C-alpha cells in the first residue's frame, strides 16, 4: 500500500515517458554511430511520414496492420498471456481472406464479399490461435513456445499451399491470380475523391476504419462486458479469479481466439486492401511489431492507436529517409522498434524503484 502515495501520473505518465525517451536517445546514438545527424534524420522521418498527403496515407496504412497486431498482443497480455504468434495468425488470417476472395470475386458484389472476408480472416486467425490456446489451457503447454512453433508451421503451410495449389498457372513466382475488383477493399483516396477531397494516392484503405472499429470493440469488450471483467481478473489476480468462480482455462481459450482474430484481420488490409492477390510473406514482421505497439501503447486502445501511428510513421519515414540518405536502410526503424521493446518492456522497472522511492520520500517529508 506504499504505492498509494506515489502519484498516479508518475506510473502511467512519467516512467513510461522516460523509458520511451531513453529508447529514442539510444536510437539517436545508433544514428551517430553510422555518422548521421539524428536530428536531421528525424527531420526526414517526420517529413516522410507526415509532410504530405500520400505520406500520411502510407503512415496510416502501416498503422492499420500495427493496430491489429497491437490489439492482438495486448488483449492476450490483459489475461496474462504472451501471444508471440501474431505473425502466424496474421498469415493464416490472410489465407482466409484470400480464399474467400478467390472463391467469390466473380459471383458476388463487394458488399457481400467484404463482410464475409472480414469474418473469414478473423476466423482463420482465431483458429490458428486455438490450438496453442487449447494446449495451454488444458495440457499446460507453454503458450510462448507453441505460438512460436505455430509461426513456422504457418509459414511452411502457406508456402506449400501457394506453390502447389494457389499459384496462378504459368507463373514462376508463388502468387495467386489477381482478384476481380469486386473483391477489392476501396482505397480511402477513392472514397474521398467523389466528395471533392484529394488525400493523395496511397495504399490506405477501408481496413483502417476496421482497425479503429477494432479498437472500439477492444475497449468495450475489455472494460464493459462481464467477459472482459473476467479476463482482467484472470490477468491481474488469478487467485481472486478462482475465488470469484471464474474458469481460467475457458478465459485463456476465449482470449486467444479473439487475439488470433485481431491478428487475422491484417489479412484484410494486406490481401483485400492492397495486394489484391494471395502471396507469401505479406505479414513482414507485423506480428512481432505488435508487441512493441502493445507495450508502448500501455495496453489501451488509444495508446495502441498512437503507438501504431508512431511506428507506422517510422516505417514510412524510414523509407523516405533511406531515399534521401542512401547509406541508411529502412531497417533502422526495426532497431528503434527493438529498443522500444527493450526499454519500455524488458527494462520497464529500471527507473521504477528509484522514482517511486523519490516520490515516497517526498510524500513522507
Amino acid at each position, binding site marked *: 500500500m506504499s504505492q498509494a502515495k506515489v502519484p498516479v501520473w508518475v506510473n502511467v505518465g512519467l516512467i513510461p515517458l522516460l523509458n520511451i525517451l531513453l529508447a529514442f536517445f539510444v536510437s539517436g546514438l*545508433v544514428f551517430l554511430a*553510422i555518422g548521421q545527424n539524428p536530428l536531421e534524420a528525424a527531420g526526414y522521418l517526420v517529413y516522410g511520414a507526415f509532410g504530405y498527403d500520400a505520406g500520411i496515407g502510407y503512415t496510416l496504412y502501416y498503422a492499420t496492420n500495427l493496430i491489429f497486431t497491437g490489439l492482438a498482443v495486448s488483449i492476450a497480455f490483459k489475461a496474462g498471456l504472451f501471444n508471440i504468434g501474431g505473425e502466424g495468425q496474421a498469415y493464416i488470417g490472410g489465407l482466409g481472406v484470400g480464399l474467400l476472395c478467390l472463391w467469390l470475386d466473380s459471383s458476388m458484389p463487394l458488399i457481400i464479399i467484404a463482410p464475409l472476408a472480414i469474418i473469414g480472416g478473423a476466423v482463420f486467425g482465431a483458429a490458428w490461435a486455438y490450438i496453442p490456446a487449447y*494446449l495451454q489451457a488444458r495440457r499446460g503447454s507453454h503458450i*510462448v513456445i507453441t505460438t512460436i512453433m505455430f509461426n513456422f508451421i504457418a509459414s511452411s503451410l502457406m508456402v506449400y499451399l501457394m506453390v502447389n495449389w494457389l499459384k496462378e498457372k504459368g507463373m514462376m513466382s508463388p502468387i495467386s491470380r489477381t482478384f476481380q475488383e469486386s473483391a477489392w477493399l476501396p482505397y480511402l483516396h477513392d472514397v474521398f475523391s467523389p466528395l471533392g477531397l484529394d488525400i493523395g494516392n496511397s495504399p490506405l484503405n477501408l481496413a483502417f476504419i476496421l482497425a479503429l472499429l477494432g479498437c472500439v470493440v477492444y475497449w468495450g469488450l475489455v472494460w464493459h462486458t462481464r467477459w472482459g471483467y473476467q479476463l482482467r481478473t484472470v490477468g491481474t489476480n488469478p487467485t481472486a479469479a478462482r475465488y470469484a468462480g471464474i474458469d481460467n482455462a475457458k478465459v485463456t481459450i476465449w482470449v486467444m481466439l479473439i487475439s488470433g482474430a485481431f491478428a487475422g484481420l491484417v489479412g484484410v488490409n494486406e490481401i483485400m486492401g492492397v495486394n489484391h492477390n494471395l502471396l507469401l510473406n505479406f505479414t513482414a514482421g507485423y506480428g512481432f511489431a505488435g508487441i512493441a505497439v502493445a507495450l508502448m501503447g500501455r495496453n489501451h486502445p488509444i495508446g495502441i492507436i498512437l503507438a501504431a501511428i508512431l511506428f507506422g510513421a517510422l516505417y514510412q519515414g524510414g523509407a523516405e529517409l533511406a531515399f534521401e540518405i542512401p547509406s541508411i*536502410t529502412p*531497417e533502422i526503424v*526495426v*532497431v528503434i522498434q527493438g529498443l522500444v*521493446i527493450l526499454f519500455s518492456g524488458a*527494462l520497464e522497472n529500471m527507473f521504477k524503484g528509484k522514482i517511486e522511492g523519490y516520490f515516497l520520500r517526498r510524500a513522507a517529508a
Partner: protein
Amino acid sequence: MFETLILILDATLRVSTPLILAALAGLFSERSGIVDIGLEGKMLGGAFAAAAAAAVFGSAWIGLAFAILASVGLALIHGFACITHRGDHIVSGVAINTIVAGLTVTLGLDWFSQGGQTPALTGDARFTSIVFPFAEQIADVPVIGLIYSELLSGHNILVYMAFVFVPATYWIVFKTRFGLRLRAVGENPHAVDTAGISVALVRYRAVIICGILCGIAGAYLSTAHNAGFLKDMSAGKGYMALAALIFGKWRPVPVLFACLLFGFLDAVAVRLQGVALPGIGEVPVQAIEVLPYVLTVLLLAGFIGKAVGPKAIGKPYVKERA
C-alpha cells in the same frame, strides 16, 4: 543408395552444427532459469560481427573473437534486464532479436555499402575444411572409405568443436561445482541463496556462456558455412535450436540427437525436392521442414513423452519475507 545416405548425413552434420551450438547455449541459460528466445538474435549478431571482423582483418579467428564479443554483449543486456531488473524474459528476448535484425543491416550498409551484406570472404577469412589424413587414399574402400572421407573428414573446425562441446557441456553441467549450482539455481534459487551462493552471479555466468556459444554458432553461419553475412541469415535457426532444447528435455546428449534429427530432416527435405518416392509419390518439402516444430508442439502437449523444464524458469528471483 548408400552414397546418397552418406551425402545426406554429411549435410546433416553441416546443418546441425549451428543448431547444436545454439541449443547448448540455450541449455546453459535455461538451466539457470533464464528463458532465452534471443538465441536467434545472438546468433545473427555473432554472424554479422564475425563476417565484418573477418572481412576487415582477413582472419576467421579474429572474426570468431568478435562474434563472441558481440554475442556476449547481447547476452549481458538480456541478463541485465532479466536478472538485475527482473524484466520479462520473453520480452527481453524479443527485443534483442528485433534490435539485431535491424542493427546488422544498418551497420552493414554503413560499413560496407553492399546493401547490408558483408564482402565475400575468401582464404583465411573463412574457416576451411579439414581433410583427415589418408582421406583420399582410402576413399575407395567400400563403406568405411566413404564414411571416413565423406562423412567424417572434410568439415571445418567449428563443426568438430560443436561435437566436442556436447560431452564438455555434459561434464560441466553434471560433474562440476558450477554445473551443480547452475542446475540448482534453475530449480530452486532460494536453496542456492540460503546455501550462501549469489543467485545473480550464477545466472550471469550462465548467460555469458550462452553468449559465447551463440557467438560461435553465428561465426559458423557467416565464416564457415557461408562466405559472408547476409540479411537475416540465421533464418529461424535460433528458434529451431530452442525447439531442439525442449525436445531434448534440457539434457546435452538428447539435445544433440534432437539437433541431428532436425538437421537430418532439413537435409532430407533439400534432397527430396521434386523427387517422387516409390509408392508414396512426391512428398511436399514443407511437410518435412515443418516436422521439428510439429514434433516439439506434440511433445509440449504431452502426446510424446513429457517436457518438464527447470522449475524456476522464467521467474525472477525475489527474496521473500520468510
